[in-house]
C-alpha cells in the first residue's frame, strides 16, 4: 500500500547522475531531461564525460556525469552545485562530492561499494561507514541487487542485468521528483521494439525503481517542481548541435539552394555531421572527407558550384582548415565554418568545454584575412546563429565563423519552435547576364557576383592569387593588391550595418557592466539577476557578433566606469575590446573545462563593488 509522503514544492533542483562511462549515465540524464521538458519545467543540462570511450570500470578517471537543472522559473545554467547526486559507485561519489551543496542528498548504489571498487576509487575506508558523509542526506539503495531481483526469470546475462540498473535509478528519481514514467516507456518501446527481452528488462527496472521509492521508507519526502511559465508556444528540447544542424537546413530552405556539408569527425562537433546525414530528403548532402582539410576544401568547391556550403569542426580541426579558409577569403565565396570549441591547445581536453578559439578565428590565417565571426549563447541560440551565419555568408560572399562550444553543443534546453514562415528569406541571385559580368565587380554590399559553373557565357577563373579589381585576372600590381586588401576589409566591416546593436540588460545606470560572449551567457545572466536582487546595480551586454562588433559597442562601453569581462580563456574578448576601443576592462578568467558557476561571477562583482560573498 502506498504510504503518505510529505510533498515539498521546490522552485528549482539540480541533479547530477554519475557512474562509470559504461553505466549509461548520459542516457539516464537525457531521459530525465526529456521527461522534465515534457512536464513543462525550464531546464538546462551539462553532460560531462571522459575522452575514453570505455575507461576501465570503477576508476576515478572513468567517471561520467550528467547534470541537469530544472525549475518552475526561467533558468539559464545547468546549476552551480547539485542538490542531488546519484552515485553508481565509489569513484562517482569521490569525484563529485566536492561539487555538492551543503546538505545535499546523495543516492548511492551500496552494492557497488565493495573492496575492489573502494580500492579503485582510492578509498582506504568505506565512506558509507566512516561518518565522512555526515552533513549530507545519504540514501543507501541496493541498486544492483534490487535490479537483479526485479529482472528475475528473464533470459538475461548477469552483464545485461547489471547494465539495466541505470533505469532502476532513473525510476527512483522519477518517483522522488514526481515525474511520469510514460515518456521513457515510449522511448524504450521505440528503441527496443525489435528486442522484446531488453524492452521488458528496462521497463521492469524503471518501474521497480519507481515503486522502490513508493514502497520503502528510504525517502520521507517527495519533491514537486511546478511547470515553468514559459512564453506561449510549442516547445521541444534541443541540444546545441541539433539546433546548429537544423539551423543550416532552415537556411538552405530559405535560400532555396542545397546544403552541402564537408566534414571530418571530431569531438564535440561530430553530432552535427550525424544529424545532417539523416536529412537526405531535405536535399542535404554530407561528405565525410578523408581529413579536415578535404572537409573544408570540398565545401569551398561546392560553394563555387552554387551550394550553401558548410564545414564543421573543433579547435584542432580548425587549425588544419586555416589555409583553405584563407582561400575562401581570397575567392570571396560563401562558406560557414563551425567551430565547436573544446579545451586546447593541441588535443587538449577533447570532451571538455572552453571558449578559447576566438583569436584563432579572428587572426589564425596568413595575410590580411578578415572573416566575420558570430557566436551562439545558448543551445537553442545555435539555431539562430547558424541561420544568421548563412545569411551573412551568402549576402556578403564571404566565409563566416560560427563559434559554439562543447557545453552548448551537448547541453540542451527547451526551444520555442519558430514558425517557418517567420524566418526571413535569404535571397540568392546567381549572376546570369553575360554582357555585364565581371568576376570581381561589386554591388552595394561590396560583394562580388556568384556566377556558378554551368552558366553559359560566364566562364571565369578564380583562385588564391591576388586578383585585379573588377576583372578578376591575376594581378601583381602593388596598388591593386592594397586596394583589394582594403576592399575585403571594408566589406567585412560593412556587415556592421546589417547586424543588431548590443542590448543592455539590467540597470542602465549601473556601476558595472559585464560584457561577455558565447556560452557564458547563462552564468552571467543568472549572476546579474541574483546581484540585482541583492541590490547591486549591474548591467549586462552579450556579444553574439564578434567581427565586426555591433555598431553601438563603443557607445555602450563608454557609458560604464567599470567593465568586467568573464571568459573561459585568458582574456581573448578582453584583448579585442582593448585593441579596438582602447578600453581597460577587468578580466575574470577560468580555464577548467567547465562553464562558470554564476556564483563565481557574482563573487567577482561583489569583490569589485564591495559586499559579502555568496557561497
Amino acid at each position: 500500500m502506498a504510504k503518505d509522503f510529505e510533498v515539498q514544492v521546490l522552485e528549482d533542483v539540480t541533479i547530477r547522475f554519475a557512474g562509470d562511462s559504461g553505466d549509461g549515465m548520459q542516457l539516464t540524464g537525457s531521459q530525465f531531461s526529456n521527461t522534465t521538458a515534457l512536464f513543462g519545467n525550464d531546464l538546462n543540462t551539462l553532460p560531462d564525460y571522459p575522452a575514453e570511450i570505455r575507461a576501465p570500470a570503477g576508476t576515478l578517471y572513468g567517471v561520467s556525469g550528467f547534470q541537469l537543472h530544472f525549475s518552475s522559473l526561467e533558468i539559464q545554467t545547468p546549476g552551480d552545485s547539485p542538490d542531488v547526486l546519484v552515485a553508481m559507485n565509489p569513484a562517482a561519489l569521490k569525484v563529485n562530492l566536492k561539487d555538492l551543496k551543503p546538505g545535499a542528498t546523495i543516492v548511492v548504489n551500496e552494492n557497488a561499494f565493495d573492496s575492489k571498487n573502494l580500492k579503485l576509487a582510492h578509498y582506504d575506508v568505506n565512506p558509507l561507514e566512516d561518518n565522512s558523509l555526515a552533513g549530507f542526506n545519504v540514501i543507501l539503495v541496493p541498486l544492483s541487487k534490487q535490479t537483479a531481483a526485479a529482472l528475475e526469470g528473464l533470459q538475461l546475462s548477469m552483464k545485461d542485468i547489471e547494465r539495466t540498473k541505470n533505469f532502476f535509478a532513473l525510476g527512483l528519481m522519477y518517483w522522488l521528483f514526481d515525474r511520469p514514467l510514460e515518456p521513457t516507456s515510449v522511448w524504450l518501446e521505440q528503441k527496443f521494439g525489435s528486442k522484446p527481452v531488453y524492452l521488458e528488462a528496462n521497463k521492469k527496472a524503471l518501474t521497480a525503481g519507481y515503486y522502490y521509492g513508493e514502497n520503502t521508507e528510504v525517502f520521507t519526502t517527495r519533491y514537486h517542481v511546478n511547470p515553468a511559465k514559459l512564453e506561449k508556444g510549442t516547445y521541444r528540447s534541443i541540444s546545441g548541435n541539433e539546433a546548429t544542424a537544423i539551423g543550416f537546413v532552415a537556411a538552405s530552405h530559405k535560400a532555396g539552394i542545397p546544403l552541402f556539408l564537408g566534414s571530418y569527425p571530431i569531438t564535440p562537433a561530430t553530432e552535427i555531421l550525424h544529424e545532417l546525414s539523416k536529412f537526405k530528403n531535405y536535399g542535404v548532402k554530407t561528405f565525410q572527407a578523408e581529413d579536415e582539410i578535404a572537409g573544408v576544401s570540398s565545401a569551398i568547391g561546392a560553394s563555387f558550384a552554387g551550394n550553401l556550403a558548410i564545414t564543421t569542426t573543433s579547435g584542432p580541426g580548425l587549425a588544419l582548415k586555416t589555409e583553405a579558409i584563407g582561400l575562401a577569403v581570397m575567392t570571396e565565396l560563401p562558406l560557414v565554418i563551425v567551430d565547436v570549441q573544446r579545451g586546447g591547445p593541441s588535443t587538449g581536453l577533447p570532451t571538455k568545454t572552453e571558449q578559447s578559439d576566438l583569436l584563432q578565428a579572428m587572426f589564425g590565417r596568413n595575410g590580411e584575412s578578415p572573416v566575420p565571426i558570430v557566436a551562439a549563447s545558448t543551445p537553442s541560440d545555435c539555431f539562430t546563429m547558424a541561420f544568421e551565419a548563412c545569411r551573412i555568408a551568402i549576402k556578403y560572399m564571404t566565409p563566416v565563423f560560427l563559434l559554439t562550444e562543447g557545453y552548448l553543443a551537448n547541453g540542451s534546453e527547451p526551444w520555442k519552435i519558430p514558425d517557418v514562415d517567420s524566418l526571413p528569406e535569404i535571397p540568392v541571385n546567381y549572376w546570369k547576364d553575360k554582357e555585364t559580368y565581371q568576376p570581381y565587380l561589386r554591388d552595394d554590399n561590396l560583394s562580388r557576383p556568384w556566377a556558378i559553373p554551368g552558366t553559359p557565357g560566364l566562364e571565369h577563373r578564380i583562385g588564391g592569387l591576388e586578383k585585379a579589381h573588377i576583372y578578376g585576372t591575376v594581378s601583381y600590381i602593388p596598388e591593386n593588391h592594397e586596394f583589394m586588401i582594403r576592399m575585403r576589409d571594408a566589406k567585412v566591416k560593412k556587415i556592421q550595418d546589417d547586424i543588431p546593436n548590443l542590448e543592455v540588460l539590467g540597470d542602465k545606470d549601473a556601476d558595472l557592466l559585464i560584457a561577455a560572449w558565447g556560452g557564458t551567457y547563462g552564468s552571467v545572466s543568472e549572476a546579474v539577476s541574483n546581484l540585482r536582487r541583492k541590490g547591486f546595480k549591474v548591467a549586462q551586454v552579450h556579444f553574439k557578433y564578434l567581427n565586426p562588433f555591433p555598431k553601438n559597442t563603443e557607445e555602450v562601453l563608454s557609458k560604464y566606469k567599470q567593465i568586467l569581462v568573464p571568459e573561459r580563456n585568458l582574456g581573448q574578448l578582453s584583448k579585442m575590446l582593448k585593441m579596438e576601443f582602447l578600453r581597460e576592462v577587468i578580466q575574470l578568467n577560468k580555464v577548467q573545462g567547465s562553464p562558470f558557476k554564476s556564483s563565481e561571477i557574482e563573487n567577482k562583482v561583489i569583490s569589485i563593488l564591495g559586499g559579502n560573498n555568496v557561497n
Partner: protein
Amino acid sequence: MSTKEVMEKTENVKLTAKDFATNQDVRWCPGCGDYSILAQAQRISPELGIPREKFVWVSGIGCSSRFPYYMDTYGFHSIHGRAPAIATGVKLANPDLSVWVAAGDGDLLSIGGNHFIHACRRNIDMKVILFNNRIYGLTKGQYSPTSEKGKKTKSSPYGSIDFPFLPVNMAVASGATFVARSIDRDPKHLQAMMLRAAAHHGLAFIEIYQNCNIFNDGAYEPLTNKETKPDHVVVLEHGKPLIFGKNNDKGIRLDGMNPIIVDLTKGEYSVSDLWVHDEFDSNPGRSFVLAHFSDLKDFPAPIGVFRQIQKSTYDGDLFAQLDEVTKMKGKGDLAKLFRSGNTWEVA
C-alpha cells in the same frame, strides 16, 4: 572505343581549340612540356560534345597548376595539394559538370597524396591529369616524390635518398577505374588518352611524362627521341601483344607474374608467345606488373591505357541515395523537422 579508333577519330578533328583558349598570356617557360598538354586539352575539348560552360578545371599549386587560367572554361586555381578535394565538392554540388584536375607530381603525390588516393577510392566521376616532370619546378628545382633515388638537386646535393612513387600503381591500388599514361611529346597519343579519359564514367587518371626543360631537362629523353623511343617505349593496346623495338623485334612474355623480354628474331619465341594486353582485366595484378617495368633493367616504359573497369561512382550513389530516401520518407518538410522528437505546448 579502342585507342586506335580514338586516334583515327582525332585525325579528322575540325579544330576549334581556340574556343578554349583564354586571353591570358601563357607564362610557362619557353619549351615547357605543359604547352603541349594545354594544346591537346584545348584540341580535344570541342570533341566531347560538352558545352563549354560545363567544364570546370581545378588545380592546386605548382607550374602546371596555372593550367585553369589558360582554359576558357570555369576554373579554380586553389591551394597546394587540395585540387582533388575541391573538385570533389564541385562535382557533388553539380554532377552535370565535367570536372578536370590538373596537378603536378609534388601537388598530387606529396602534399595532396591523401586527397588523390581518396578521390580514386571513391571513384568520383572526374579526370585527374598528372603532369609528372619528376622535379619541383616552381620552387626552383628540388627532388619530387617521383624523382629517381640518387637524384642530385638543390635540396639533395649528394643525391636523394628517397624512393619514388609509381603514380600508376598508386591510382590502381587506390581504386581508380581508368588509369593511363602518355607523354607530352606524343600529341596524338596524348589526345587519344584524354578522349578515352573523358569518355570514362568514374575517376580517370592520366600520368603524363612531362619535360621540365629548366630543372630536369631530358628526364624522358630516351622515351621521346626518335632514335631511342622504339626501344624505350611499349604502346599498350587492348588485345594486342606487347611488342617494342626499332624493328618490332622485341616482345614481352609473362612467366607467371614475371615479365621477360624476348627476342622475336631468333625463332625461339613468336608473337603468339607474348603477353596480350587486356585493359578490362578485372584483376589489377597485371597493371602493377606493367607499372613496375620502370624498376626493371632494359624494360620499356608502357604508355596507353593500363586499366579500365566499371564501378558505381560516389557522385552517382550520393544522388541515388538522396532520391531513395526522399522516396521513402517524402520530401522534407521544415516545419516537421522543427517539431521532430517530443514537443509540448505552453498556453
